[in-house]
């Protein structure tokens, strides 16, 4: 719809005194992407979000969101945000908080009532709209915060650890909400250290550590692996040596683990195993889990 990327950063850096919170962040997030920003605690994830929203100022570098330079009011016009430290006015009701944000976001007055009821329904708070926020559990406040972030048809939604206070049902709901946003073409920037969460919803991922992006790409690119596992029985002794041209062979119980095999050659490999008298029960490309990859990245491997 609009050809500027949702987020562009150029050498974006932030220093707090002696602490380099962010050391030259370069990334481009296309419109409509569900972008996972992964990293351990203190890696610079929240700092990045605060810089993008103009809540903190970069020490150097520049960035644009939705085509507008960060820090300018216009850049925040179509943006929804759920802070990591989410806290909403305890003396207001949930409906009043949503109303406040409708006004702040410049939502058309005629749409307020519908927007508020929709937001309450999407986050599962339709029965608690008239309750004071002060009576909410942390999980309910986080749901409310998510509702606030969804108001006013945003083009970009920044979610900073959106499931930190939620139970498994709540986490599932959040994933569904994020998928719903993707279907509407909304760009989602998801800050998280929960790998499974990112793995399940994100199209693209950046891994950040000590203020620097150490890997970026689609999940597929990041987790691609050239290892195949074949569950096989009846293979004569010594036959596996004849599979050596396909890659390095290991045995793991009933499984043959073949490393370094090109994806196109997997059918040939299976045919060869069968030709040698093996009975093939299962063939699995072995994807690395995000956790394994993440830990390898952080250890500098």
């Amino acid at each position: 719809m609009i050809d500027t990327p949702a987020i562009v950063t150029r050498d974006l850096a932030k220093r707090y005194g002696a602490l380099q919170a962010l050391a030259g962040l370069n990334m481009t997030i296309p419109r409509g992407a569900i972008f996972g920003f992964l990293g351990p605690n203190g890696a610079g994830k929240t700092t990045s979000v605060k810089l993008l929203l103009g809540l903190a100022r970069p020490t150097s570098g520049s960035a644009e969101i939705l085509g507008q330079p960060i820090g300018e009011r216009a850049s925040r016009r179509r943006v929804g945000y759920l802070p990591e430290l989410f806290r909403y006015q305890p003396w207001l009701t949930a409906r009043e908080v949503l109303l406040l944000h409708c006004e702040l976001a410049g939502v058309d007055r005629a749409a307020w009532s519908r927007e508020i009821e929709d937001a309450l329904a999407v986050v599962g708070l339709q029965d608690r709209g008239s309750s004071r926020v002060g009576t909410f559990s942390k999980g309910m406040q986080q749901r409310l915060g998510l509702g606030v972030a969804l108001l006013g048809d945003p083009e970009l939604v920044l979610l900073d650890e959106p499931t930190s206070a939620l139970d498994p049902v709540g986490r599932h709901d959040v994933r569904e909400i994020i998928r719903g946003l993707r279907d509407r073409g909304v760009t989602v920037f998801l800050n998280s250290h929960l790998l499974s969460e990112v793995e399940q919803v994100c199209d693209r991922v950046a891994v950040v550590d000590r203020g620097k992006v150490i890997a970026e790409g689609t999940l597929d690119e990041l987790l691609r692996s050239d290892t195949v596992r074949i569950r096989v029985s009846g293979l004569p002794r010594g036959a596996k040596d004849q599979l050596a041209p396909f890659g390095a062979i290991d045995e793991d119980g009933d499984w043959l683990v073949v490393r370094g095999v090109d994806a196109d050659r997997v059918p040939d490999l299976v045919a060869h195993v069968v030709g040698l008298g093996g009975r093939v029960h299962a063939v699995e490309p072995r994807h690395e889990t995000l956790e394994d990859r993440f830990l390898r990245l952080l250890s500098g491997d």
Partner: protein
Amino acid sequence: MLVLLIARLTVLELLRRRLFLVLIGLTLIVVALTSWGIAQVTTVGGRPMTRVEQVTVVSQLLILVGFMFSFTLSFSAVFAGAPSLSGDLESGTALAILARPISRAEFVIGKWLGVIATILIYALPTTALQLFLVDRIVQYVPPHPFEFVGFMVIEGIVVLTLALALSTRLAGMVGGVVALILWGVAWIGGIVGGVGLVLNNATATHIGTATRLILPTDGMWRGAVWALEPATIIAAIRASGPAAAGNPFFASEPPDALYLAWTAAWIVAFLGLAIWSFQQREI
């Protein structure tokens, strides 16, 4: 108008807090007690008071009640102003708001207007009720009732603006204590300046002038006292020489136009400082 939205939100926050109800309740009790007390002031030395005596006593009692109003108003302004920005930053409620297309200036001015509106909601009905009851009981209206309320409210705005500016950098408790200490120092500074006049001591007079300029709360308080002082008492005390200048519950003249202009400029400057300081603040 996002400024008015934040102002409305601030008023709502303050009104929904128990502090406001407690303040109104206590003030109404004080108003009732002073009205009852004033109704008892009818005799002196066993004989009925003359009208002149009654006016003298009632007017001076009213000045003491006025001091209570000025005191609670200033304290409420500090208690409302000092945590208004720092509290929102500490709790995190400011994050979601400031990530919206609102400028920091709009946020600060909205908070400022909201606290002022709350001060007015508190001060106007309670002082009006007090003056009305005194009028009904002893048929006495102070010479300048509107000026009295005006000076008191300006005093509240001055100390609120100070508290708000401190709130951009200091935690609510710290900023509040600093603002109250400065308010007290300004009050003492006013007395020192008066004593300087009495003793013809230039240093003390300069200290008084400096504190009046640095924080114009006591200057406004003196305006409120003047507004409550009957002309007969002003004339009598003037005739008795300069000794009354050291009395913080007496003023023979209202603040002049130049000082009022200074006070207005002070408020604008400190509000500007608050905005600037909040704009620089990382959240």
